[in-house]
C-alpha cells in the first residue's frame, strides 16, 4: 500500500469530516506547480533537501505560505515561510523570507542523511508534526494564507523553532529555542531583487533552471579519488579472502557506530570517519609528538608492521578519503605497506557478495 493511501485511511478513521485528496506520485519539478496551485497552504513534511527547495520555490512563485517542519535523529526544526505570501522580487520593505533566504545552499550530499539511515526519535518527529499542524491552523484561521497586496499588511518576522532531544545539549537538556529569521534577503535566488529573472515556473518545469538534483549534489557519478591499484572490489576482496590469498590484515570500517552495529564484514574494526578525521588533524598539528600509526585502532598492534590495511565505508567515498589520509600520515611506510579502499562500500558489498546484508 502506498504511504499516501495508508495515511488517508488512518486520518479518515481519526476524522471523517475533511476531504482527503491523494496525489499518489512523487513530487517533481514537472508536476509540483500543477498540484500546489490547487491549495491555499503547504505543509512540507518531506525527507530530502531537493524536494524542500522545490516546494519552497513553487510556493514563492504561486504565492502560497509554507509551514516547513523537519526532524532527524534528536533534532527538529519548524518555521513558517512566505507568509503572508508576497509577490516575488519585492524588496522595498521587509517581507517574509522563503526557505532559500534561510538556507542558501544545501549541505554536501555526504552530510545529508535521511531518517531511514540516521534514525529518528519518534517523540521529536511527533512534536514537530503537532507544532506544524498548530501553525497551519493559525494561518488559515487568521487569513494569513491570502496573498498580501504588497503595502497593506505589516511584516511579521518568523521564528525558526529548534528542538533538541539531547541530554548533553549545549544549552540544557529538553530544549526548545526560537531564533528570529529576519526578512526576505535582497540577494535571494527565489524571492530577492533579481529573482524574477532567475526563477520561473517554466524554468522549473524544464528541469534545468534550477536543476534540483544537481543543486543538491545528487546523481553525480561516484567520485574516484584513488588510482586503480589502491582499490579492490568487494567481490575481489571476498574471493581472495576465501581462497586464503590475503595475509593477516587490518580491515577498518569507517561508518558510524550505529551503522556498524547492524552488521559488518567479519573481522572489521570500527573507526567512525568523523572521529578519524579529527584524530588525523590532531596528529598533524602535534608535529613530531604523535606518530601517524597512533591513528590506527589497537588491533593493528597485533599485526606485523607491514600488514595490509583495507578500508570500507557506507557507499565508498569516506573510505577513499581515509586511505588518502593514512598515506599522508605515512602509515603506508612510503609504499611498503598496502592500504586499499574497498570500492563502493557496504552498499556494493551487499550487491556483490552478501545480498542478505542489512544495508541502512
Amino acid at each position, binding site marked *: 500500500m502506498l504511504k499516501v493511501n495508508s495515511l488517508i485511511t488512518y486520518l479518515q478513521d481519526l476524522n471523517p469530516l475533511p476531504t482527503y485528496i491523494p496525489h499518489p506520485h512523487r513530487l517533481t519539478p514537472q508536476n509540483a506547480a500543477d498540484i500546489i496551485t490547487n491549495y491555499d497552504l503547504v505543509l*512540507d*513534511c*518531506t*525527507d*530530502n*533537501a531537493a524536494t*524542500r527547495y522545490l516546494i519552497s520555490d513553487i510556493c514563492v512563485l504561486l504565492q502560497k505560505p509554507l509551514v516547513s*517542519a*523537519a*526532524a*532527524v*535523529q534528536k*533534532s*527538529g*526544526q519548524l518555521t513558517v515561510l512566505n507568509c503572508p505570501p508576497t509577490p516575488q522580487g519585492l524588496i522595498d520593505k521587509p517581507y517574509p523570507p522563503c526557505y532559500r533566504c*534561510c*538556507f*542558501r*545552499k*544545501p*549541505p*554536501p550530499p*555526504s*552530510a*545529508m*542523511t*535521511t*531518517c531511514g539511515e*540516521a534514525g*529518528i526519535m519518534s517523540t521529536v*518527529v511527533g512534536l514537530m508534526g503537532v507544532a506544524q499542524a498548530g501553525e497551519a491552523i493559525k494561518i488559515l484561521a487568521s487569513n494569513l494564507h491570502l496573498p498580501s497586496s504588497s503595502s497593506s499588511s505589516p511584516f511579521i518576522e518568523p521564528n*525558526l523553532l*529548534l528542538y*533538541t532531544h*539531547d541530554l*548533553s*545539549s*549545549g*544549552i540544557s537538556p529538553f530544549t526548545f*529555542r*526560537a*531564533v*528570529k*529569521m*529576519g526578512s526576505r*534577503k*535582497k*540577494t535571494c535566488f527565489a524571492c530577492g531583487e533579481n529573482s524574477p529573472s532567475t526563477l520561473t515556473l517554466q524554468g522549473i518545469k524544464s528541469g534545468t533552471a534550477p536543476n534540483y538534483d544537481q543543486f543538491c549534489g545528487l546523481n553525480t557519478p561516484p567520485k574516484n579519488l584513488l588510482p586503480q591499484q589502491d582499490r579492490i572490489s568487494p567481490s575481489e576482496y571476498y574471493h581472495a579472502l576465501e581462497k586464503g590469498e590475503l595475509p593477516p590484515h587490518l580491515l577498518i570500517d569507517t561508518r558510524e557506530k550505529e551503522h556498524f552495529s547492524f552488521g559488518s564484514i567479519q573481522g572489521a574494526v570500527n573507526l567512525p570517519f*568523523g*572521529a578519524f*578525521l*579529527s584524530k588525523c*588533524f590532531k596528529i598533524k598539528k602535534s608535529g613530531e609528538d604523535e606518530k601517524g600509526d597512533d591513528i590506527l585502532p589497537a588491533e593493528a598492534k597485533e599485526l606485523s608492521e607491514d600488514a595490509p590495511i583495507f578500508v570500507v565505508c557506507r557507499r565508498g567515498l569516506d573510505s577513499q578519503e581515509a586511505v588518502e589520509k593514512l598515506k599522508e600520515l605515512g602509515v603506508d611506510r612510503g609504499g611498503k605497506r598496502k592500504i586499499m579502499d574497498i570500492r563502493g562500500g557496504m552498499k556494493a558489498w551487499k550487491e556483490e557478495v552478501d545480498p542478505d546484508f542489512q544495508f541502512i
Partner: protein
Amino acid sequence: MSAAQVGHFNILYFASASSYTMTNAESLPAPLPLSKLFGLLEERYKGIKQNVLESSLVTVNLTYVDVEGDGEDMVIKEGDEVAIIPPVSSG
C-alpha cells in the same frame, strides 16, 4: 551553558555542527569580526566550512545574521551567544 568568560563569547553547535566539532558549545575569544568567524572555525575544525558552515544558518543573540552579506561589518562582542544551525531536511 553558563555565561561566557570575560573576554569571550559562547558558540553553540546544533545537529551536524555538533557532530563535526564533537562538542555542543564552547567559549572563544571576543571581540571577533563576524567575517572572521568561519576562518577561525576552519582552523579549529578542518573541513567544517565546506561540510557544515556554508550551508548553515548563523545567529548572534538569537537573531539571524547574514555572514556573507549585510552582516559582514558586524563584530561579535564579549558575552554574545553565537549559534551554528545546519538545516535539518529529513522528515
